[in-house]
């Protein structure tokens, strides 16, 4: 075994011990879990800080202003720095100006695009010529289920009479939706667990292969 393999084994063992320390929480809270949890918080914060520094602060602030002479980047930079005044009680109001610029732009972009993507396109998807086939029938069923589900969220009128019937069908439809979500969530969560167990299995094989 070469030196690299031992280095690999060291780091993989660190990862395996971290995995086991976190799993130990399933039995009960303990110092090993707390240690790894806090270490993770520190490492993630450090990683994100440097990621922001290199890929965002350097590329979008330092390089344009100081190396490429694009002076107009000073304007958003000042607005960004104003955000820091949020930490001050006396000058906290200054942060509102940059926040206002940020919120105004984001909201102005968000409104038309959300109307388009989440409302108009969805309504467009619900309306089409219906052919006398199984698929056509299912399209009508889906449409009615959607209308019933929407009627469940209509609180301006008491859920009685026709609205009572449609909202009842609507809540059943919603339950089917949530049930589907739960079934798929189990798949997702088990995948995460299986991934870690596979890693531990590979680690044991690596240890056995390297040491013995």
């Amino acid at each position, binding site marked *: 075994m070469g030196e690299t393999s031992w280095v690999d084994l060291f780091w993989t063992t660190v990862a395996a011990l971290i995995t086991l320390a976190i799993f130990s929480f*399933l*039995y009960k809270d303990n110092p090993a879990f707390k240690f790894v949890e806090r270490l993770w918080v520190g490492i*993630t914060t450090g*990683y*994100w800080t440097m*990621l*922001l520094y*290199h*890929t*965002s602060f*350097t*590329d*979008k602030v330092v*390089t*344009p202003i100081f190396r490429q002479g694009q002076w107009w980047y000073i304007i958003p930079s000042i607005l960004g720095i104003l955000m820091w005044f949020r930490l001050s009680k006396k000058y906290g109001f200054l942060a509102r100006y940059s926040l206002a610029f940020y919120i105004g732009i*984001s909201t102005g*972009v*968000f409104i038309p*695009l*959300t109307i*388009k*993507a*989440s409302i108009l*396109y*969805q309504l*467009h*998807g619900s309306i089409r010529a219906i052919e006398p086939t199984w698929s056509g029938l299912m399209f009508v069923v*889906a449409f009615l289920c959607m209308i019933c589900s929407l009627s469940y969220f209509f609180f301006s009128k008491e859920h009685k009479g026709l609205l009572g019937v449609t909202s009842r069908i609507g809540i059943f439809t919603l339950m089917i*939706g949530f049930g*589907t*979500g739960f079934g*798929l*969530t*189990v*798949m*997702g*969560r*088990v*995948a*995460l*667990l*299986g*991934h*870690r*167990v*596979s890693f531990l*299995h590979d680690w044991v094989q690596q240890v056995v292969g390297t040491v013995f």
Partner: protein
Amino acid sequence: MPWYDRVLSIDRRWVYLILGLAVVVPVIVEMHIPVTLSREVQAVYDFVSEVRDGELMLLAIDYDPSTMAELHPMAEAIIRQVFEQNGHLLLSSLSQFGPAMTDELITRIAADYGKVHGEDFVFLGYKPYPAITILAMGSDFRVPFPNDYYGNIVDELPMMAGVHNFGDVRGVVALAGGTAADFWIIYGNAKFGVPVALGVTGVMASDYYPYLQAGQLFGLIPGIKGAAEYEQIADRPGEGVRGIPYQTTSHAVILCLIIVTNIAFFAKRAATRRHSQAISSL
């Protein structure tokens, strides 16, 4: 204590142990369980199949280690497929812990196929606020990414000559473990009309069928099963296919637990009713 009370008040750690065993055993004892294929995964595969001989697609790796179990196999399968077809890849990572994972993945796979950064693929890197970044990418990739992840000036990379915005890529496959998936639909597809397909976690999967039906997505890879399907279609078994056996055993265990707890629940309810009827008849 009646049997149903014992069943209903079992310590949660026994449930953990049973589930743990259901996952550990299939990992140790290797098995192969085929999965049924779905149209939405086939659609993504067909799209990637067309990215060949210098064609360009954008692969967005917008997930963190918390969801890599489901999404990493998809990324690996797609990257390998594009490289085998001599297609070009533009990668971005709008999740804060995604860039280093993307770098590890692309560096490893590119070495297998002898692909060169800047010529066969470009990893643009990370910028915060995915919604704004996607909008800016729609104007020009150079707006949010004047430099790539490694600090190279994007304009100096041969592959990026003539590549400016979504109009210059065949489409986007976004592998997302969070809200970035919605942002690609709202800000990528609805604003710029770029064809978008998603690879999402099992938790998120059912939420994206309305978009699929409305044509806002041309394909969807749902969770680890979707990843396994993709690997099966591509005839390249990987972590997705490896994940199916423990999915099967753990699902079987959870289904059994649900049956047992419901039998105990109804037995208890019946017993309580009998008991209250007996008291009222006295």
